[in-house]
Each structure stands twice: as C-alpha cells, then as structure tokens.
C-alpha cells in the first residue's frame, strides 16, 4: 500500500508517530551539524523526546490500553537526566583543560 497522509482530524496514531519521527530527525541533524558540545547535547535531548513521543503515542492508542509505553518514557526521561548530568560534567572538565567546547578542537583527549 502506498503511503498516504492521515486526514487532518481526528488525531490518530500516525500523527503522533510522524511527530516523533520529525523530532528525532531534526535532533539528528543538530547532532551532525553543530560543533558546540553543549548544543549537541541539546540536540540529543530533542532526539530522545522524539522517541518519547513515539512511546507515548503507542501507549495512548493501544487497544486494550496498556501503559507500558508511558512507563518506558518515564525511564527515558530519568536516564536522559542522568546522561545530561554526566555529559555536562565531562564537557566542563574538557573546557577546564582546553578552554573550548567545540568538538572538532577537543578531539585529542591526550592531556
């Protein structure tokens, strides 16, 4: 069956999944195109949000309703918080050594 856009409303599962895919792709573009490590971290957060939207969409439309997707999303958010904490700590440590957070200048990790 050829792909066809869902009708404008009501909001269906496909709408949620499309949004998730779009956020994931935009975040990916950010990860690939930026060189400031903190902005790359932000773009990763956008990607994780795309994944979360997908999880939540599946949880919302599943019949009979199961909330596993939402529980997963809670874990994703929690792990993302821990990831941001450690990631920024590493970035700050690199900055202290190199006075820069541009990834293409900080690729030599020999102290």
């Amino acid at each position, binding site marked *: 069956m050829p792909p066809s856009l869902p009708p404008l409303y009501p909001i269906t599962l496909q709408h949620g999944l499309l949004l998730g895919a779009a956020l994931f792709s935009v975040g990916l573009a950010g990860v690939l195109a930026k060189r400031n490590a903190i902005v790359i971290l932000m773009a990763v957060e956008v990607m994780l949000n795309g994944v979360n939207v997908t999880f939540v969409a599946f949880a919302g439309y599943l019949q009979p309703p199961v909330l596993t997707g939402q529980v997963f999303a809670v874990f994703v958010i929690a792990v993302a918080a821990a990831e941001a*904490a450690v990631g920024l*700590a590493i970035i700050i440590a690199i900055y202290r050594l190199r006075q820069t957070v541009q990834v293409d200048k900080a690729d030599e990790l020999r102290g």
Partner: protein
Amino acid sequence: MVASFGPVALAVAIATVFGLLPLFLSGIIVPKKPDSVKNATYECGVETIGPTYIQFRTPYYLYALLFVIFDVEAVFLFPWAVAYRQLGLFALAEVAIFIGLLLVGYAYAWRKKAFEWT
C-alpha cells in the same frame, strides 16, 4: 484529558496577553529618549570592566547536578505515593532501597564537600 488540561493552556494564553497588554500600553505613552549614557550597562555607575560573561565556579554546577538527581527521585515517588495503598509494604521496602542508594550518593557528596559554599 484535553477537557481537564485545556483550561490550563487557555490560562497560559490569557496570562501572556495580560502581560503584553501593559507593555503595549506603556509602549505608547512612555518617553523614548535613549542616549549612550542612560542605556549603558549599570554597574554602580562604573563602566563594565572586562568581559561580562565571566566563568562561574564549579560549585554552582554541583548543586544543579544534585538537584537534577533528587528531582528525578522525587518524581518517581509521586506514582508511589498515589498508588501506595494498593501497593503496600513491599513497595515501601522498594522505595526504601531506592532512597537508600541515593543517600549513599548524598553521603558521598557531603563528604566531598559538594554542599559547601567556599
């Protein structure tokens, strides 16, 4: 869901309008006479010395880091608190382990003087 959350979104929209309205109103009536002295950065009347965006010290980051971890922990406790009566003492033990592990990190942060402002 939308029926109960919708009013909150409406409130955000109306509060934004309420904030913009006086700005717009005063934008019409207030005098606009900018000059280089008046619109200079105010630091006790002395011109700014050096770059404004100074580097902050690491203790600020350590507070933010500990806050994020404890905030996530508190958020995990909300579903537990709501469902506690269904879950019973087994869940209390699970939460005790959960918080206990975090308290190990808390004790470590305390010992490493992450809470000290020096």
